[in-house]
């Protein structure tokens, strides 16, 4: 779903995409391989994300995006290769993975340093539009509500690397725009690196500094989006990039997409 962000969002990392693994890298992956039952889902993958870069990751369903994210999060260590990531990471998984035995607000605060109060959780939940479900048990949340709670839980952390696995998939148009803005704001304020897995090409183009397409276990294609923010999906460059990406994903898309604004 195409969107134009309300507020001005500037990339804090002007030296975008050096990708040389220099001192200010946030992610450095060298010849990473991850196999399940002998099938290499990730196959000699190389990836560098400089600190502060916003990267979107596209790819066919089942191509290994979530697997890559789990490796970067340090959760999957049955790998070969070299992976360097910051200590402070925050993850929003594809499934919400809320602890069913903790009320929503406690889920948000789980694992945070320094015993933050309920107010912190309430603020974060209000931002994702869950102000009225603060005290609910996770299993009573709707699909989109659970996804937003999981997003809020990732965003209240102050990470150096933010890993988001299709965080807006179950959200309606309006809620999605709000959530996108939240991520963009955190990114801008904190200057963290972001890796966003998404299936929405327009979302990727509007948010990211760089868009990767994963295929065959490696980063098969990447494009840089050299446009200041706020971006407009009707922008000819973006429309062209969109066609290019959709093409890479196996879909033909000759005409530029429409732009819609928040009501």
């Amino acid at each position: 779903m195409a969107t134009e962000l309300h507020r001005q969002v500037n990339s804090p990392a002007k030296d975008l995409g050096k990708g040389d693994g220099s001192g200010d890298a946030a992610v450095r992956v060298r010849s990473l391989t991850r196999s399940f039952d002998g099938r290499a889902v990730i196959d000699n993958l190389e990836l560098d994300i400089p600190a502060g870069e916003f990267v979107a990751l596209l790819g066919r369903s089942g191509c290994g995006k979530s697997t890559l994210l789990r490796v970067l999060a340090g959760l999957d260590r049955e790998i070969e290769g070299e992976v360097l990531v910051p200590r402070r990471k925050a993850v929003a998984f594809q499934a919400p993975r809320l602890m069913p035995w903790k009320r929503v607000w406690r889920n948000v605060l789980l694992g945070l340093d320094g015993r933050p109060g309920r107010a912190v959780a309430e603020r974060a939940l209000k931002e994702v539009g869950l102000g009225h479900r603060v005290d609910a048990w996770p299993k009573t949340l709707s699909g989109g509500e659970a996804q937003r709670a999981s997003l809020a839980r990732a965003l209240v952390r102050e990470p150096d690397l933010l890993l988001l696995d299709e965080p807006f998939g179950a959200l309606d148009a309006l809620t999605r725009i709000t959530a996108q803005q939240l991520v963009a704001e955190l990114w801008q304020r904190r200057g963290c690196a972001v890796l966003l897995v998404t299936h929405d090409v327009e979302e990727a183009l509007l948010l990211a500094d760089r868009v990767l397409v994963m295929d065959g276990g490696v980063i098969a294609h990447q494009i840089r989006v050299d446009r200041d923010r706020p971006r407009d999906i009707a922008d000819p460059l973006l429309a062209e990039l969109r066609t290019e990406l959709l093409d890479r994903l196996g879909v033909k898309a000759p005409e530029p997409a429409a732009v819609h604004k928040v009501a």
Partner: protein
Amino acid sequence: MSPVLEPVVPLSARRRTVPRWLRRTTGPLLLLVLWQVSSATGVLPSDTLASPGTIAGTASDLLKDGTLPHAMLVSVQRVLIGLVLGGVIGISLALVSGLSRLGEDLVDATVQMLRSIPWVGMIPLFIIWMGIGEAPKIALIALGVTFHLYLNVYAGIRGVDAQLIEAGNSLGLGRWGLIRHVVLPGALPGAMTGLRYSLATAWLALVFGETINADDGIGFLLNRAREFFQTDVIVVCLIVYAALGLLADFIVRTLERLLLQWRPNFTGK
């Protein structure tokens, strides 16, 4: 072509009105009625099993002369101490072997082996090690409790969804935080089952514990009654056990309602 429609019947249309506790007493009450009826009709001769009336008489005698209340007091004390002791040990062992591979390799096989040993066979050893005071009685109870809790908590820990453990990890929870916020709550349903059975085992262990130099307690009463062929006293003791069992069950159910309210599980229909 056009499908036949069926109504979705609202549940409220046929909601039950009998309160829960009343419905739960139906089974035990039915059993009692059956017993009385078969006693009265002679289907159950009195030397096979005394009638509820006879038993009630014996029970009220034992109550009046203070034997039963005193015995219960003593036994409950022993059970509580054993329960706490066994609980701490059992849960700790379960944590060690549930949480680490190394712990599992060292602890689990050993516990699985030891728990198969009938602890009644151990009584002489217990006496040698602990004398004939309260220690061996409580040790017997603790032993039974330990193994039950161990087994269920261990299974509970191993049953925790790996995805949630991952999530906890990714949220920056340390080892202890993970245990406290993810593993233990996840193992709680299992622990509750273990607790339920531990309570029963504790009472059972008492029967053996109170063969060791006891002149008090429900187990002692039961053993003496067996020795002296007092079938009615035996039945009174068994009924006391059953009542205590129901009480324990009630306590565990209440605990479950408080602690597992997050769990919207299958509740039968």
